[in-house]
């Protein structure tokens, strides 16, 4: 009988162990052959994965991260990347693919690897950006010529800004007049403290005008 899904593998009905009953509802479980990475990731001498890429569980996960930079962005990009990385099985449905792709795309380890790869690629593309900027500066007819010059000058001679910060420090200076001492004694009595029991005030000679 021909497989209605066009699956080349005839194994999907042979996965039941001997003596194992089919599912309770009598449905047949169809399992396809697991996909594989089409070819192992190339090893380039003198280079190695970053820590986040190295921490990924398999080469398929690394391939998924790399595939995300190759597939055109838009609807279905994650699924395409998952297919390129060899996830799923030969019988995975569209729904399965979307689940697989979503799980992969939201995996914390993959997100960390993507962040790492982003930084690498941005750093690596800096020389090209500089070259493009040079072209822009040299092309006086370009509409963004002035902006490019301004950008470059801003980085070479940044505009100096001056901030005037006013700091007010308030220090309470209480002249030790007899009135102040009287107020201290009154407040002490209100709080149930005998003024005589208080230790002497530091370095003070009460005068009429408050000078020491």
């Amino acid at each position: 009988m021909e497989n209605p899904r066009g699956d080349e593998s005839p194994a999907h009905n042979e996965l039941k162990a001997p003596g194992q009953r089919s599912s309770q509802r009598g449905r047949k479980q169809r399992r396809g052959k697991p996909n594989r990475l089409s070819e192992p990731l190339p090893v380039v001498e003198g280079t190695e994965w970053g820590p986040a890429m190295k921490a990924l569980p398999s080469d398929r996960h690394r391939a998924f991260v790399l595939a995300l930079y190759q597939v055109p962005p838009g609807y279905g990009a994650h699924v395409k990347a998952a297919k390129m990385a060899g996830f799923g099985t030969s019988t995975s449905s569209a729904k399965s693919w979307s689940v697989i792709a979503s799980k992969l795309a939201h995996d914390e380890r993959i997100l960390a690897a993507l962040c790492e790869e982003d930084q690498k690629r941005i750093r690596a593309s800096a020389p090209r950006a500089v070259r493009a900027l040079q072209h822009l500066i040299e092309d006086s007819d370009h509409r963004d010529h002035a902006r490019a010059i301004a950008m470059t000058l801003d980085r070479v001679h940044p505009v100096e800004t001056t901030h005037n910060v006013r700091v007010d420090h308030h220090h309470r200076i209480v002249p030790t007049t007899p009135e102040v001492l009287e107020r201290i004694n009154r407040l002490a009595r209100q709080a149930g403290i005998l003024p005589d029991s208080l230790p002497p005030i530091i370095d003070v000679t009460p005068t009429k005008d408050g000078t020491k």
Partner: protein
Amino acid sequence: MTRGDRYTLIVISLLKKALLACPTDAAERLEILENLNTCASGAISPIALTLIAPMCDTGYRMVEAARQLDPPDENPYPQYDPDSVRPPCPGRASFDMLTSDPVFSHLRRLNPSIDEVLKLCFSRRGRDQTTQSSV
């Protein structure tokens, strides 16, 4: 009686201890006394303020130990943000510790005047007596 009231009673006895133990200049002493007198508000009457005795050395060491629970880099004067879900609360850890039932009961035992104030301000009979005396 709220935990804030408990803390106020602790602060009153602590400030009295500071006033009696540490020599200060006039400005400092005036500031401490003004702060001390502002503690007499709400349930804590001015009479209660006079009744509370200064904290003993053991109580002071307990307060010092509790204050070590607060993070050392904590800003004691944080900027208030009304939109914040959990606004900063400096001294929260020591506050919780000092006003907890077991620690506060130890402080009460060390300073029996706190018990008198509790009877005076936080029992109905005590409150009635205070009201009559003030009238």
